[in-house]
């Protein structure tokens, strides 16, 4: 299937019948059906929250946009039941190579160990990602209303929430919402409408980005060239995508004329210079970009919450844009569901701003450092940059200075308000704020599975059983309703009875067998008896031993229900 402009799938939706006067207030309306808005909708639906998604278009992303989706994003999509489809279609990679001219300077492996369900990255065209998310959203017909060709034209904040004016194929209408998620992209009309500045750094450099279809034997790796022999510019980047499509980025310099450079008769010779004259090649799509890094100062404005590109944009080196946006969705939706159910105060939403603002800063810092390295602006910068390139061939230290992209990694939320300070800072394993790491386990039915499949979704106490079963009297002091997952190195013997994996230590407890001992190692099970895991699979707290009181306090804090604030965490 080709995805030229005319072949994209088109979607339609029945007219929206709103009772006049807007008497029916929707809990959540999402503006924008890009990857981030769609992920929000599905996440909220898995929590039973009804969502309306409004999109001004009726199709998926056109042309050349995101292709690299990180392990963390895949794990989030696994939780939402759509990870496998992405991985099945995508091409998997974990190795990057950096060349200077023809010489390979170094190679890096983003996931050098086994024992993880998901690879470091897959490459998958954004139009497939959106198509699969749309298909997944259709599994929740009672909860998700996807409204195509519904353009939000105005927004008013009211005492009870937000009123949206919407232009639909059947005329104008209004929609009342308790919460609005603005997922309307880098040019966010919502942002403009609310008069919010979007400060940042703009890079003058222009890049030609071309997707070409060809049968070629380039490895499934990220190939990056400084001063390539086949291209007169500063750098080039090549990625394999599904369907024999390759993404090639050519750095063109700040003077390049975007109109001229996107003409196929200019593009094809550049492509030919890489792939040779003999390989049949067709140009799928190309465009000339310049990039900026920018963010809103605050992501939460009353009941309007900005997610994805509307809140922050980065240059694409490092694949931090889309991947960052998916983590926004992951961070926000459980909080919103708790607030809507009255189980957490509305102030919990402020921690979305705290946590994802911190992540946006990290993404902007990394991607602007890469862009600065790639585009030296003065002679002195140029000398330093060239010095790094020339030294890197010989001296390992210079390879660490070489910056051809710092690829998206899950952001750590350590030290922020919801996390309980770490009582065992020396212990191995994720610290409070870190995202949980995967490990192979054997599940209740005796099947080989993955630890992450049992974490996330709701708050979970992850217990490492050590030599014996955890003392049931300790577990019974836990907050009522808290999910409990017990990982044991071998089938457990409770006093008086043997408990096999799959049996319950206590009602509601899931047992996992750590047959290979990997989970225990990765979580420092020797010094950590338990972890409190947030619904987004970040660690809220960890404990040297299980203590119902401490767990209860940590849970209240992680739900924004305790008065403990950022000052104490700092």
């Amino acid at each position, binding site marked *: 299937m080709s995805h030229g402009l005319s072949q994209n799938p088109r979607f339609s939706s029945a007219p929206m019948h709103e009772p006049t006067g807007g008497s029916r207030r929707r809990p959540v309306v999402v503006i924008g059906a890009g990857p981030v808005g769609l992920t929000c909708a599905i996440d909220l639906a898995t929590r039973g929250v009804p969502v309306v998604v409004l999109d001004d278009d009726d199709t998926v992303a056109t042309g050349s946009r995101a292709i690299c989706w990180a392990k963390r994003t895949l794990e989030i999509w696994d939780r939402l039941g759509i990870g496998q489809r992405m991985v099945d279609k995508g091409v998997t990679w974990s190795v990057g190579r950096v060349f200077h001219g023809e010489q390979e300077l170094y190679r890096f492996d983003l996931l050098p160990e086994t024992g993880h369900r998901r690879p470091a990255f897959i490459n998958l065209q954004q139009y497939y990602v959106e198509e699969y998310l749309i298909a997944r959203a259709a599994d929740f017909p009672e909860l998700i209303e996807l409204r195509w060709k519904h353009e939000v034209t105005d927004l008013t904040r009211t005492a009870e929430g937000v009123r949206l004016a919407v232009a639909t194929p059947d005329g104008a209408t209004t929609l009342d919402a308790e919460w609005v998620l603005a997922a309307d992209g880098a040019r966010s009309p919502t942002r403009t409408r609310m008069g919010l500045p979007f400060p940042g750094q703009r890079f003058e450099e222009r890049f030609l980005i071309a997707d070409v279809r060809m049968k070629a034997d380039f490895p499934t790796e990220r190939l990056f060239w400084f001063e390539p022999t086949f291209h007169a510019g500063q750098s080039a980047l090549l990625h394999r995508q599904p369907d024999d499509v390759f993404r090639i980025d050519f750095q063109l310099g700040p003077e390049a004329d975007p109109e001229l450079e996107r003409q196929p008769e200019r593009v094809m010779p550049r492509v030919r210079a890489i792939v040779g004259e003999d390989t049949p090649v067709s140009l799928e799509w190309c465009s000339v970009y310049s990039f900026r890094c920018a963010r809103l100062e605050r992501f939460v404005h009353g009941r309007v919450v900005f997610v994805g590109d509307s809140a922050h944009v980065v240059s694409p080196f490092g694949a931090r844009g889309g991947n960052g946006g998916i983590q926004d969705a992951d961070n926000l939706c459980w909080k919103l569901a708790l607030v809507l159910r009255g189980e957490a105060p509305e102030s919990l939403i402020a921690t979305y701003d705290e946590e994802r603002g911190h992540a946006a800063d990290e993404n902007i810092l990394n991607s602007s450092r890469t862009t600065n390295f790639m585009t030296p602006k003065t002679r002195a910068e140029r000398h330093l940059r060239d010095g*790094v390139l020339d030294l890197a061939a010989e001296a390992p*230290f210079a390879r660490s200075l070489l910056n051809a992209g710092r690829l998206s990694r899950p952001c750590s939320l350590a030290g922020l308000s919801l996390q309980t300070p770490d009582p065992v800072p020396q212990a191995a394993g994720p610290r409070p704020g870190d995202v949980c790491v995967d490990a192979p386990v054997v599940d209740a039915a005796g099947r080989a599975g993955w630890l992450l499949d049992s974490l996330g979704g709701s708050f979970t106490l992850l217990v490492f059983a050590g030599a014996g079963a955890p003392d049931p009297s300790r577990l019974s002091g836990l907050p009522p309703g808290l999910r409990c997952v017990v990982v044991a190195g071998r089938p457990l013997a409770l006093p008086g009875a043997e408990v096999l994996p799959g049996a319950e230590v206590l009602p509601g407890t899931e047992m996992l067998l750590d047959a290979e001992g990997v989970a225990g190692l990765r979580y420092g099970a020797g010094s950590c008896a338990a972890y409190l895991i947030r619904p987004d699979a970040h660690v809220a707290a960890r404990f040297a031993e299980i203590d119902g009181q401490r767990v209860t306090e940590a849970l209240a804090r992680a739900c924004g229900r305790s008065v403990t604030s950022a000052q104490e965490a700092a």
Partner: protein
Amino acid sequence: MMTASLRQGDGFAGRADAVYETLIRAHQTLSDEESAALNARLVLILANEVGDPAVLEQAIALARRSLRPADPDHARP
């Protein structure tokens, strides 16, 4: 927390003249452009030797303070 500080005392242990001569000799036969390239590489190599970014910051601050006002690139932080 104590941060490491830049050595401002004499670290040459009586070999200062030899060190200075070594630095000058490094630029022999080089054009100005090549010298600038060499200096950049030396800075990178020595920055790695120093390692600690805080010490490097102090070194940069000292260097910038010492720039002559007549220098066209002169700018105080």
